[in-house]
């Protein structure tokens, strides 16, 4: 337990020491979306499918939170790849504690950072005109879902980095957030998506996570059905990525 805590503090300290890659880069595009993009497409809410009188900045804010979550979730993977390259990973592997506490601590440090990103983006969206009915509930749901989604989704990059030891691969996987978010209800409501895309969006966990955050922030309530589907989606993605990490770890031991 103590080793996990030391490693967690270490990962947070590291994020502070390289803010450009751990804070600024993951936040630039989402901040752009919530401050510029939301206003450029402000009149889209007049199209049927949006709730009447709603503001696009309020609709798109959860999408930017998910985007930051996905862009910032690769830090643990990149750091682990660097540890493999520098030999620090082997230093941990030859210790009684092994490398697992470090990987877990890095992932939870990522989750902490992503929760903070969610709160920052919610505040910026509020400053841009998004109403927040229940501050505590809204920020809690946004931060928790962003952290959990980042934890689950970031496992993909981590598995790739453990398997290859290549930090570049984690960066190569970053653009995946585009198809995942654009094939969901994060940017436009379901009726506005092309018919063939609606089926994908219904199965896309990003749709339910974005909807759950939106309801919590704007309406100040938890929609049981949506949050249950969001949690199930996160769980399934986490299960799949955890399996990939486990396989990569097995391979590393057999090298």
């Amino acid at each position, binding site marked *: 337990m103590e080793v996990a805590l030391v490693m967690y503090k*270490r990962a947070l300290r590291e994020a502070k020491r390289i803010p450009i890659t751990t804070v600024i880069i993951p936040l630039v595009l989402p901040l752009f979306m919530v401050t510029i993009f939301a206003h450029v497409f402000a009149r889209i809410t007049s199209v049927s499918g949006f709730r009447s009188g709603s503001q696009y900045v309020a609709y798109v804010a959860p999408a930017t939170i998910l985007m930051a979550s996905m862009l910032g979730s690769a830090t643990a993977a990149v750091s682990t790849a660097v540890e493999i390259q520098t030999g620090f*990973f*082997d*230093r941990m592997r*030859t210790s009684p504690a092994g490398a697992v506490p470090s990987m877990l601590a890095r992932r939870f440090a990522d989750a902490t950072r992503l929760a903070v990103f969610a709160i920052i983006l919610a505040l910026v969206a509020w400053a841009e005109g998004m109403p927040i009915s229940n501050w505590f509930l809204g920020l809690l749901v946004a931060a928790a879902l962003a952290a959990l989604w980042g934890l689950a989704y970031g496992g993909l990059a981590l598995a790739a980095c453990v398997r290859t030891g290549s930090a570049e691969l984690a960066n190569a996987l970053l653009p995946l957030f585009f198809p995942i978010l654009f094939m969901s209800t994060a940017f436009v409501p379901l009726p506005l998506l092309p018919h063939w895309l609606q089926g994908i969006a219904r199965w896309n966990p990003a749709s339910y996570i974005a909807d759950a955050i939106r309801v919590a922030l704007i309406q100040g309530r938890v929609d049981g059905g949506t949050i249950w589907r969001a949690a199930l989606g996160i769980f399934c993605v986490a299960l799949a990525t955890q399996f990939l990490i486990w396989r990569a770890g097995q391979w590393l031991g057999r090298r």
Partner: protein
Amino acid sequence: MIAATDLTKVYAGGRRALIGVSLRVHEGEIVGVVGPNGAGKSTALKILSTVFAPSSGTATVCGHDLSDAGSIRPCIGVALQDVGLDPLMTGHEHFTVQASLYGVPRDAAACREARLVERFGLSDHVDQVVGAYSGGTQRRLSLALALLHEPKALIFDEPTVGLDPRARRQFMATLRELRDQGHPVLLSTQYLEEANQLCQYLYVIDEGAVVAEGSPADLRAAVGGLAFRVTVGDTVDDVASRVAGTWQSGQPRIDGEQLVFHVSDQIRDPDAILAMLRRVDAEIREYRLVTPDLDDVFIHFTGERSESEPGQRPMDMTVRIQRGGGQRWK
């Protein structure tokens, strides 16, 4: 004690890095593994450090079987070839992390850290991030970290690479102290003079196999004969190329400004060498007949690489000098 029997490692992709390596390190003994780059030294040490498993073969470290890595890890202090440091952490943070990885209580860790920082000359650096360290300072920190949990056995892969002569001498003194306290120490090195000074027993590894083993003195004796060192006035490479077409009794090796001829049973008379050098118009400045050093041993056992694939080395070419004297061809 560290003991390995018939360790074999085949990497993913089929590359055979180790072929039946057996070695033994007793308590209170420093044992060296020497060999050219890519010979398999690091692979052997990584297996014994539990970084990865062998493809076949067995080993015990501190009385625990390799398959029981969890029991081995608290007992060993490891410094691998890569220094294994995080460039974003300070030296002090490394000590904190290392202590937590090995479950060293905070008070004890602080006390040992102070001692190791002093011993390895890290006082001026310990609060700086490692990325700002020189290569030698990083190496010193890496070695200090390996000793933080007061391990029973030590495994060091080329530990003195990058150290300046003073730091190297200090580290060698530390190793001797640890040996005198009864710790088994296994290290690989490219510095044969260092192996000569430190190690009681040596394994020469080439192409994944142990090609010779014994004490430094026994290995030198196994090379047999003497080394005839000739300092020439011309460019030494030039003379060596002229000698190549003339001298049929083995190519001399180049050591700085000198040509080193192995004087064996077949060539008893160094005068023949001098005569040959005069025939090729070499300007002879100085010559002396000396006992072979470990460089000669190294070249003798690893210098002439066969074109055969690893694993096809005829094992009966391995020379083994058993502990306590005596020599036998395996």
